[in-house]
């Protein structure tokens, strides 16, 4: 595996204007993505985890310029992605593709499978029909669909097969980066295993890079090389798969991991559940200090006063918590 950084995201910020309580008051902002930075190496998978509403999807959409970032930089293979003009963007988009959660609604029901897979090539507009047909034929084989299924419409496929069509479509333009947003969450476990195996095989064969969003930590553990944990728009911990799972440092990460029910008896017995009572704070009126302080079992005065910054504590293992020192020991 190369050591080359394919994607580098720096201080990314996305905010949405929200009106509170009507009247003439000026709009306040919900910072859905707040100062987010991470890197993904070519051929690797970065997983983003975090609770619902923490900003995972918005981060991915901003990286792909499907929502507008108000600050920050996205570098894709040396291209400053956020400053491309519309024509440059159209061509560059081919390098970054999405696979969505819902294999039912993300495919146009009026198009045949073959048209769906060909669509990104059509909009790229650089190939003749014969070239496109050759690519589509190859893609169908690669994702495990039969040639005669090219003529069928989405409703004639099962959920897993529809997700294969979505994968074929994402692969069509030979992207460098594929963003999978809850790509297997709607599937039953058996079909999920088929799709996860396919994604890993394609990654190995084509040296693909994935940004993989999932709420299922078992799936994340199986798929990723590194992880970013998000909480209320922030990355609170970022590190390698081994570091995150075997030595979680941020109290929220620990709570998240401890909440996963496990079939492994040894794990159930070794894991003390870390309860985080209550709810996250109002995202429009954020507290001054650490956003996790009202639920954190070890919060101190400094936590309620100062917002902890994400910093490298040990060989690339980054955490945003006042109580984690240079020794990289969990404060719990």
């Amino acid at each position, binding site marked *: 595996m190369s050591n080359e950084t394919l994607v580098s995201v720096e201080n990314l910020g996305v905010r949405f204007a929200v009106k509170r309580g009507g009247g003439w008051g000026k709009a306040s902002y919900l910072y859905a993505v707040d100062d987010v930075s991470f890197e993904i190496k070519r051929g690797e998978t970065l997983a983003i985890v975090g*609770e*619902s509403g923490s900003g995972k999807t918005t981060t991915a959409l901003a990286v792909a310029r499907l929502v507008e970032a108000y600050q920050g930089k996205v570098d894709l293979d040396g291209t400053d992605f956020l400053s491309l003009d519309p024509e440059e963007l159209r061509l560059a988009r081919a390098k970054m593709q999405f696979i969505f959660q819902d294999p039912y609604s993300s495919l146009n029901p009026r198009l045949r499978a073959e048209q769906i897979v060909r669509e990104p090539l059509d909009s790229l507009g650089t190939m003749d029909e014969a070239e496109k047909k050759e690519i589509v034929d190859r893609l169908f084989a690669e994702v495990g669909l039969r040639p005669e299924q090219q003529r069928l419409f989405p409703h004639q496929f*099962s959920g*897993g097969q529809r997700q294969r069509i979505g994968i074929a479509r994402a692969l069509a333009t030979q992207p460098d980066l594929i963003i999978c947003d809850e790509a297997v969450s709607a599937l*039953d*476990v*058996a*079909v*999920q*295993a*088929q799709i*996860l*195996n396919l994604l*890993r*095989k394609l990654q190995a064969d084509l040296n693909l890079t994935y940004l993989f969003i999932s*709420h299922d*930590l*078992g*799936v994340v*553990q*199986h*798929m990723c090389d590194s992880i970013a944990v998000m909480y209320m728009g922030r990355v609170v911990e970022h590190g390698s*798969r*081994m570091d995150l*799972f*075997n030595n979680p440092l941020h109290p929220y990460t620990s*709570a*998240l*991991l*401890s*909440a*996963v*029910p*496990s*079939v*492994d*008896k*040894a*794990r*159930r017995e*070794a894991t003390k*559940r870390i*309860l*985080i*009572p*209550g*709810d996250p704070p109002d995202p429009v009126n954020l507290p001054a200090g650490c956003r996790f302080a009202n639920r954190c079992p070890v919060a101190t005065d400094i936590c309620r006063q100062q917002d902890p910054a994400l910093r490298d504590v040990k060989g690339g293992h980054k955490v945003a918590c006042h109580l984690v020192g240079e020794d990289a020991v969990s404060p719990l």
Partner: protein
Amino acid sequence: MEPLLKVENLRIELTTRTGVAPVIDNLSFELGAGESISFVGESGCGKSMTALGIMGLLPEKVGRIASGSITFNGEELTTASPKRLRDIRGNDISMIFQEPMTSLNPVYTVGEQIAEVIRAHQGLSRKAAWNQAIELLDAVRIPNAKGRVSDYPFQMSGGQRQRVMIAIALACEPKILIADEPTTALDVTVQAQIFDLLNDMKRQTGASIIMITHDMGAVAEMAERMIVMYAGRKAEEGPVEQTIEHPRHPYTRGLISCVPHIMSTISEERHALTEVPGIVPSLSDFGQNRCLFASRCNMVTQKCLEERPPEKPFANGQKAACWYAEEV
């Protein structure tokens, strides 16, 4: 001793465009007082239908109990009057559903909805019922229960709405709580809170729990006994730990091994997941006299295609409907 709930040779038929199909096909199981069991299996295998059948809530004109019996505390439910079933639903058997938003009424506050159940169940005054609603919200750990009792469902998060549903279920003081994928739409940290809550409730009231889920980890954490459903039939039943440790049905084995679990330590090495090829058969293929798992099974023989496998019991209480259960 008679079990609290006893289901025998239950057959539930659904009428669809393509004909009548047995969505539940000869299902038998028992539930003891204070016991918790889990139903597990892929979508479409009949888990929810089992629950709705017990509750007397099968889809009207579409579903009906064709044969078999369901007895609760010795009373036959399959022939009970609609009024009696309503009574049992209000007092003895409660159900919480996957999507709490659809089961709460959007135009009433959560307090009004909880209080109404309390009044119907315990005949308390309006004021007393309201106060008890606050207590229940507090019991299900809604912060600031006194303030939140006047919230409408849309003002609450998914996890809070599910806790309200549990509060309503608790208001009935049921002997059996059926939870159909109660946490599927929720974050794991919220799921952990809901599981704790259900376990507390079980300890305090001695209620039995039937939890439906597709997550083996949740089964391992929540249940004493598990029932694996496949295509309307019971594939396997057994004590949770032993069944997960040594499944006796190839489908159970597949369900466990196809999922990437988090083990006690994570190692560098990763293998491809074991695949269970194919998908659950469609409803119109249910009910045939053969093993319905055959098309996905790597142990299939001619015999499996010719006759429905009977349930084989094992000494530890496990039972598996597979011709080759001893060899799994």
